[in-house]
C-alpha cells in the first residue's frame, strides 16, 4: 500500500473504531491467555495486531476475514513470548465461590498446556471459531485441526485432575 493509500486508509476512522469495538475484547483475551496473564504485553501485542492488519482494509462483509487475519497476527506475535502466570485470584466477582474456584482451576490448567494446545482451545471454545477458520489461521487441514483440538481438550481435563489432586 502506498504512503498516500495508507494515509487515506487511516481516514476511515469510523470503520476502524467499529472493528476495534467489535474485536478488542476477543483479541485481548486471546493474547492475554497466550501471554500468561501479562496485561501490558497482551495490550501491546493486541494493539499492534490491529495496526498490522489495518494495512489490509476490509471491504464490506469481510469482517470475519478481518478477524481471522487479526487472530493470525496476534497468535504469531504471541509465539515468542515467554509466558508465565501473571493472573491473580481477582475477577469474576458475582459468580458463586465454588464456580469461581472451578474457573480458576480451568484457567490454571489452560496455562499449563503447550502454546499450540492453548491456541486451539482458545480459538474453539473461547472465540467459537469454526474448524475451517481455525485451520486457516493455523494453516493446517480441518481434519488435523479437529483432532488436535480434541486432544487438547483431553489434555486440559488431565491437567485439571492433576491440579485438583495436588500433583500439578
Amino acid at each position, binding site marked *: 500500500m502506498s*504512503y498516500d493509500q*495508507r*494515509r487515506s486508509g*487511516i481516514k476511515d*476512522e469510523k470503520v*476502524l*473504531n467499529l472493528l*476495534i*469495538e467489535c474485536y*478488542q*475484547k*476477543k483479541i*485481548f*483475551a486471546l493474547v*492475554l*491467555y497466550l501471554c500468561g496473564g501479562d*496485561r501490558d504485553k497482551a*495490550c501491546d501485542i*493486541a*494493539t*499492534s495486531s*490491529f*495496526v498490522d492488519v*489495518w494495512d489490509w482494509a476490509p471491504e464490506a462483509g469481510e469482517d470475519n476475514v478481518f478477524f481471522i487475519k487479526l487472530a493470525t497476527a496476534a497468535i504469531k506475535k504471541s509465539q515468542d513470548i515467554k509466558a508465565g502466570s501473571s493472573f491473580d485470584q481477582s*475477577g*469474576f466477582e458475582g459468580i458463586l465461590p465454588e*464456580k469461581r474456584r*472451578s*474457573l480458576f482451576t*480451568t*484457567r490454571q490448567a*489452560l496455562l499449563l498446556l503447550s502454546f499450540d494446545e492453548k491456541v486451539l*482451545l*482458545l480459538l*474453539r*471454545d*473461547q*472465540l*467459537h471459531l*469454526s*474448524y*475451517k477458520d481455525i485451520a486457516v489461521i493455523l494453516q493446517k487441514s480441518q481434519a488435523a485441526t479437529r483432532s488436535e*483440538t*480434541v486432544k487438547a*481438550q483431553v489434555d*486440559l*481435563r488431565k491437567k*485439571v485432575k492433576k491440579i485438583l489432586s495436588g500433583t500439578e
Partner: protein
Amino acid sequence: MTCNDIEENLKPFMEDLLGEEEYLAFHRHLEGCPKCRDHVGAFDSFAGHIWKLGDVEVPSDFGDTVFLKLRQSLPAPREPQPSTSKSVFIWAFIAVLIAATLYFAINYFKLRESLQEQKEIVLPQAILEENGKEQIDDEQAEVLYNQLKGIARTLGVSEEEAAPMKDSGAEKPLAPVAPVSSKTAAVVNPVQLHWHFRFPNRENKNSLLNTLTALGVKLDYRDKEFFIFTATKEQLTGMLNQNPRVSQENSPLRNLGPATKGKHHVSLYLENEETPAVHWHISAGLPGYRPLFKELVRKNGGTVTYKSGDEMIFSVLSLQAKDIKTQIAAMRIMLDEYGSKEYEKEGSTGLIIVSVYFSK
C-alpha cells in the same frame, strides 16, 4: 436457531458433536440471547469455563493505543535525495565560502552601522497590549518614529519601487508601470497624480474606460475601482473634455495638476455608493513609513498585490482591516477613508481589497 433449538442441541454442543454450521448458529444465538447464554453457562463444562474466561477487562485506552500506533507506523514522505557527488559538493561549498567572504568584505562597514542602529519593530498593537492603553503616548510615538527612520536606513528603501506583487485573485492586473526612459529624463519622474472620480452609475464608469482606451491610454493596474495608468497631459486633457461627467464641478479631476511635458502617473479611484471598494488616504510624511505599513499589512495576514510610487493595494480579511486601521490611528497617522465601510460592521467576514494612496 431458536431457544428451543438451543435446548435440543445442548448435549451435542457440550460434547462438541455439532456440525460446523450448527455450532456457529448455536453461538450466534447465545451472543444475542442472554437467557440462553446464562443457561448454557450454568453447565459446568471445560468449554464453558474457557468461554467464561474470555470475559476480561480490556484496557480503557486500547482504541487510542491502536490509533497512536497506526499514526506512528505511517512512513514519512520520502524527501528528494540530494546529489551526492562529493567533488560537486566540495566545489559548491568553496564557492559559497568565497561569495560570503566577498559579500561581508564589501558590506562590512555598512552592515556594522545598520546592525548597531537596527531595532526590533514594535508594532503599536504590541505596545497597546503591553500597556493596556487604548492609545500610545507621545514618548512611545517618538520611539516608533525613530524606529521608522532606522528601518528606512537599514532597508535602503527606494520609495519609487514599481514591481507588482503576486496576484491575490482579484481582477487580473495588467503590466506594471513602465520605468521612465532616459529620453524623458529631463522630466525625470512622471508626475504623480491621485484623483477621485465620483460616478453615479456603471454607464459613466464604462464611458470613462472607453475614453481612455480611445486615447491610447493603457491601464497598468485595475482592481476594485482603483485604476492606475500613465498618460500625457494631452491624453488627460482629452479624457476630461470627452467625458462630461468627469468635468463636473464636484469632480477633482478638473484640477489636472502641474503642467509638465512629461507623463503623468495617475491613480484614479472611482467612487460610488454601491461599490464594495475600500480606499484609504494615509499621510506618509514619515520616512520609512511605507515599508512599515507593508509589514503591518503582512503581520495582519494581508497580501500586497500592487505597490507603486504612492499607491499600494492589498487584500485582507474584514476583521484584520479594522485592526490595521486601529493600529494606524494608534501611530497618530492620519487616515481618510472612502468607499465601503461594510467591513466594519459586526460579524462582517470575507476578503476585501483596499487601495491606499500615500499622501504627502
